[in-house]
Every structure is written in C-alpha cells, then in structure tokens.
C-alpha cells in the first residue's frame, strides 16, 4: 500500500490511490435493493474476502466491477478512473465502448461455473483473448499459455478439452485464462462452490500461490471461511446489500462485534 509514491518518481504518472473504490453505489432489481449506497476501498495488492448469506449482494459487487451488471447510482473507480463513466468537459458521461474496453483490461474474473469455452482446448482457452484482444502473436500467446497452465499445475493437460477435465482442473484453466490477460485486479466469484469437496483444495492452493507470487489485487466471494481467514488481508461481511462489518480476519472470525456476523459465522460452523 504505497500512498507515498510521488508523481516525480512514478513513471507514466500512475495513480497511486486505492486500486478499487466504490462510491455510494446502488443497485436494485425492481423493488429489491441488492446494494445500498455501498462505499468500499481496496488498496493495491490487497486481498479482500467477501462473505455473507446468499442474496446479500456479494456476487453483485464483483459482477458490477466486471461491468456485467449496470450500476444504478454511484461510481466505481478503478485505478483512479471511473469504470462505467468518463470525464468529458468536467462532466461525467456514460463511458463509450473504448473506455469500457480499456477499463476491463485491468480486471480479470473467475466464475463459479468456470465458463470455459467448450470448443477449445485448455491451451487455446488461454490463448484466445491474448491473441484477439491484446494482439499477441501465436508464439507469444502460446508461450504465455503454457507458462500459466504449468503454474496452475496443468502443464500436461494443454490439449485437453474442458469436457475431458475434472471440475478442479477446469477451474484452474479458468484461472490461467484470466491471468493470461495480465489484469491488475482479479475477481473470484465463489470459485469452489460448484466443485466436489475433494477438488476444492487444488483450486485454493493455486489461489494461495497467486497471492504469494504475483502483485495482484484480489477480491473474492467465498464460502470457504477457513481459506478466507488464512488468506485475506481483510474480510467484509455483507448483509442486506450493505457491509455489515469489516476488518482483518483475526477480528471478524475471532471477535466479531456485530450480532448478525456472529449468527452467520455460527451457522457456517454448524454446517461443517
């Protein structure tokens, strides 16, 4: 968290404030309010776990950040710039396609149901966007894909199709595919929820490795309380479209202040 980087010594005057900032963001479906005036700041390199009961709006946070959901009110800033709007003559106007594409380039996402491309091998899944979006040559894209797939432990499954891989392996391909775009922020949306219990570990250890090796800002919605406790710098407990309580995992998991948090954690504990 380097707030002290002055413009003088930072090349290409990079923004040094929070990586992601939600400013009074609101989202509703009809009369159902999913997010209610959300304020949230995530620092560079910070790893934030979002927990909470289903329907509390936690997945919506990630989906809005990935521009998969419209924002009703408020602004999300990524790397100091508004995500879905832009400055024109000192006025915020809805972003054009070019701005959106530039902003999306900073963000990568891994989905609950993997969403791998079924008609492409693992390697091709990782090469597709680097080639078509980043304009990498076939050789560069393939080198990058091979490197990332072996990093997630699938160096021997390059030519396998998604249907030939286990759920855990598919999810690791999906992580490699997202990383191939070199995002600054990685979003993990319940990435182990669709997996059989014995496959959860391999995916979590890959995420652990990313946290250690790469300089990434990570935002994850998870039901794996143990993992959140060990891995995250900060835990946010969502309830009814708001952050009910947040803080370092030691505090949230050991000495939660809010009654709702306590109830939720007790319920989670009983389930395991």
């Amino acid at each position: 968290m380097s707030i002290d980087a002055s413009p003088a010594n930072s090349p290409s005057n990079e923004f040094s404030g929070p990586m992601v900032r939600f400013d009074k963001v609101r989202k509703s479906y009809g009369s159902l309010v999913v997010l209610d005036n959300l304020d949230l700041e995530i620092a560079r390199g910070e790893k934030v776990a979002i927990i909470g009961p289903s329907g509390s709006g936690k997945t919506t946070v990630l989906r809005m950040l990935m521009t998969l959901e419209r924002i009703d009110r408020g602004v999300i800033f990524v790397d100091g710039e508004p995500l879905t709007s832009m400055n024109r003559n000192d006025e915020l106007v809805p972003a054009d396609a070019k701005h959106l594409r530039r902003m999306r380039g900073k963000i990568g996402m891994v989905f609950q149901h993997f969403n791998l491309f079924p008609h492409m091998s693992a390697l091709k899944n990782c090469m597709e966007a680097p080639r078509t979006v980043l304009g990498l040559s076939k050789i560069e894209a393939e080198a990058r894909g091979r490197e990332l797939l072996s990093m997630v432990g699938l160096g021997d499954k390059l030519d396998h199709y998604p249907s030939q891989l286990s759920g855990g392996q598919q999810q690791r391909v999906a992580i490699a595919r997202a990383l191939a775009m070199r995002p600054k922020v990685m979003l993990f949306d319940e990435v182990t929820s669709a997996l059989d219990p014995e496959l959860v570990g391999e995916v979590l250890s890959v995420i652990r490795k990313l946290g250690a090796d790469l300089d990434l800002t990570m935002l994850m919605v998870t039901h794996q309380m143990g993992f959140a406790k060990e891995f995250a710098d900060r835990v946010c407990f969502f309830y009814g479209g708001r952050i009910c309580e947040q803080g370092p995992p030691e505090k949230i998991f050991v000495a939660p202040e809010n009654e709702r948090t306590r109830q939720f954690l007790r319920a989670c504990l009983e389930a395991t």
Partner: protein
Amino acid sequence: MAHRPLVVCAILAFTAGLVIASFAGFREFLPGLLEGALVTVEITLGGSVLAVICAFVAALSKMFGPWPIRGLAVVYIEIFRGTSALVQLFWLFFVLPRFGITLEPLTVAILALGLNVGAYGAEVVRGAVSAVSRGQWEATVALNMSRAQALRRIVLPQALVPMIPPWGNLFIELLKTTALVSLITISDLAFKAQEMNATTYRTVEIFSIVLVFYLAVAVLITVAMRSLERFAARGLARGPAQ
C-alpha cells in the same frame, strides 16, 4: 427418426421397382425428367446458399444490430414468414419488373426461395445463438473481448452444431418448394411432369417417378446433414458442453 433413411430407402426401392415394372415407356420419358431434375437440383442448391446467407444476416441484425437495421430484419422475417411462398414468387416475377428490375425466371426462383427459407432460417439461427449460455458471453466480457470477437470466435462456433438438424429440415422444405417454380414457366421436374402428363396421361407412373426422385434428394440431404453434424461435432467440441 433414427431409422428414417432406412424406411425411406425401402419405399424408394419398392416404388421404383413397381413403377419400372408397370411402365413400358419408362425409357422414353427418363431424359426429359432428368433434364427437369437437374434444374430442380440447381434451384435447390442456389436457394439453399442464399437462404443460409439471408438467415445469418437477418438473425444477427435482429439480435445485435442498431435499431433501424434491427427493424429491417424484423420486417423481412415477418413478411417472408407471414405470406406464402407462391405469393412471393409471383410478386417477384410479376411486380419486380414494374420497378424496372427484370430478372431471369431462374434468378427469380432462387431469389424467392432463398429469401423465403432464409426468413425461417433466421429464427433457427437466432434460437441457436440465444441457446449459448450466458456464462460464455460473460467470460468474453471478463476477457475483454469485443462483441464481434465474442460472436465470431466463441458464440457462433458453439451455435453451429445444434443448428445443423433444423437446417436439414429447412433444406428439405426448400426442395419441396422448388416445385412451385414450375408455375413461373421454369422447366423443372414438376413442370416436365405436368407437360408429360398432359401428352401421355400416364399420371400414376410419371408422378410416382417424380415423387420418388424428390424423396431420394430429401434422403440425400438428410444423410449429408447428418454426416456434417457428426463431422462438425468432432471438430468443435469434445463431448457435451459444461
């Protein structure tokens, strides 16, 4: 319909045998009928190519185009699905010249059938494209692909295989509809059949041969589309999509 070709081949052989056995003058009529058959095949092929092009253009315009183009696509689809193929054929044949556009009857035939079947095909294309799961689109957004890239590289390849069987049915519909072109003076198989029927009165024999010929082409289309489906499924996706 797994055994469709088998059943149909059996009738084909049976009817052909029956007709040949009962029809002494068979050899006299064959050259004329074959000439007509060639025209029928030609129109079927031309119409099919045009139909596929129209269907994709119309469906993608309707789904992703800006509103004026979307409106045009909807109007095209509704008009050609809402009126009858024969009316369309006659309209292009009789009314188009009033716009100063005079086309060969054969061109009119291919145009009318292609546009007609293309309108039905547009709904097939639209159905298959919308059947590709939302997750696939979301993955392309997360990978920062443009909509055109997503459509071309991710969505269309997955929509193509499930589209093949309904297209097979549409091609057979098109083949059947080609008989209508005999009514705008084109000497296709149906035209030749009427001509010969008028001079020889061998109704049962002539029309049986002609019907069996159409059936044979329909079976051929079914077989061809089925092998295309197998081939495409192998090339595009190993096993079922997740």
